[in-house]
């Protein structure tokens, strides 16, 4: 029905519930209903990658999923990566390598890179380049982002969490 659907989902370890119209995208639900505005919307047609979030372990475009489709899902957004005030290893590596300037693309790169590193703890430079091909950055020129992801992989292998 075009009427509201009741939705329950877990975002960054916290259970949430809300009522949504079917046409509400998951990105809009996160931003407008749950007030999690870290997930950015650039193109709203799957091209830019800014809206990337992690749904049940997989990086996906939140502009191309409807919120109703996330019933029961476990979601991680950029807000869920840091531990309080302590940045994650990946976030710290982005900071150290100047892997962001305006920051608009950063949430999408971070969520994508988290899933890459979970799947492949020792990626090659070429593998990182390929894995972030679905994320657009207009500021950095990508090189510092690739450096940051490789450095994060190294630090994580060396035992930092």
């Amino acid at each position: 029905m075009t009427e509201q659907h009741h939705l329950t989902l877990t975002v960054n370890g916290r259970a949430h519930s809300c009522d949504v119209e079917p046409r509400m995208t998951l990105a809009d639900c996160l931003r407008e209903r749950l007030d999690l505005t870290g997930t950015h919307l650039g193109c709203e047609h799957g091209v830019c990658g800014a809206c990337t979030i992690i749904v049940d372990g997989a990086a996906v475009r939140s502009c191309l999923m409807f919120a109703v489709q996330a019933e029961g899902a476990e979601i991680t957004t950029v807000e869920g990566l840091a531990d309080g005030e302590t940045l994650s290893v990946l976030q710290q590596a982005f900071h150290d390598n100047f892997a962001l300037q305006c920051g608009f693309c950063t949430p999408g790169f971070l969520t994508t890179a988290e899933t890459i590193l979970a799947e492949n703890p020792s990626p090659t430079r070429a593998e990182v380049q390929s894995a972030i091909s679905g994320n657009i950055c207009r500021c950095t020129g990508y090189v510092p982002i690739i450096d940051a992801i490789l450095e994060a992989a190294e630090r994580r292998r060396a035992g930092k969490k």
Partner: protein
Amino acid sequence: MKPPKFDYFAPDSIESALTLIAEHGDDARYLAGGQSLVPMMNFRVAAPSALIDLNGIATLRGIKVDKNSRLHIGAMTRTREIEMDSTIASANPLLHAAAPHIAHIQIRNRGTIGGSLAHADPAAEMPGIVLACNAEINSIGPAGPRSIAAGDFFEGIYSTALQDGEMITEIVFPPWPAARCWAFQEISRREGDFAMIGIAAWFDLNETGEISAASLTAIGAGDTPLRLPAAEEILSGQPPGDVLFAEAAQAAVNELDPGSDLHASAEYRREVGGVLVERALKTALQREAPGYTA
């Protein structure tokens, strides 16, 4: 932009999906990975009155090889699963090699093989691979179940043999001989973009070393994926080699009749199509050589 209003249903069986689509009429659509349909809705190019979400139907997913060595892939199997699956790596290495060329990881994590075939973008990889392999597309609709040969499935740009309310359930690939030579080659502007042109090639060799069967398919070169019969004919019955491959490439250039768009001119596509045919055939032959990896 934001998608227009629609009714949403998430059936858990094929039967209830068919009932729902029948109830909601011509403007209802199936929703698979949403990686083509939702962008079109966000642009308001598509405005379905109802979406029947197939994601909750477990019987539409899965990968298996039957006792006759045919590979069965459920329509709702995600592109990323196809890319990562070790069964497919041996049961159809051509499909396995083409999958990573489809969009980006985040898109492949949602997009499905059935959705890609139903969407029928002329530059898409999956339609080219099913055509190259003579696969069959199993479906069920108001008129009951049927099996459609890949050669009869693609009718035009975004247009297929599927009737109103008809759902793809499974794709069935014929057995893949272990010694088959094969390659997939495409040129796109950036990694993950649609192919400006792409070529899927395979051939089998008989005991005396001649090509006993050959398949050459182009994507991004017309309204549908296209077999290249003149080039295939040149290969057939001949021993493989550089001179033969160059002749086949020339035949491909002659029979290709692609269009121009903002990504590439027709001239460029024909030229590159020939280059890719030659490259694909050479790569395919190298794979046959002992000790070849990757």
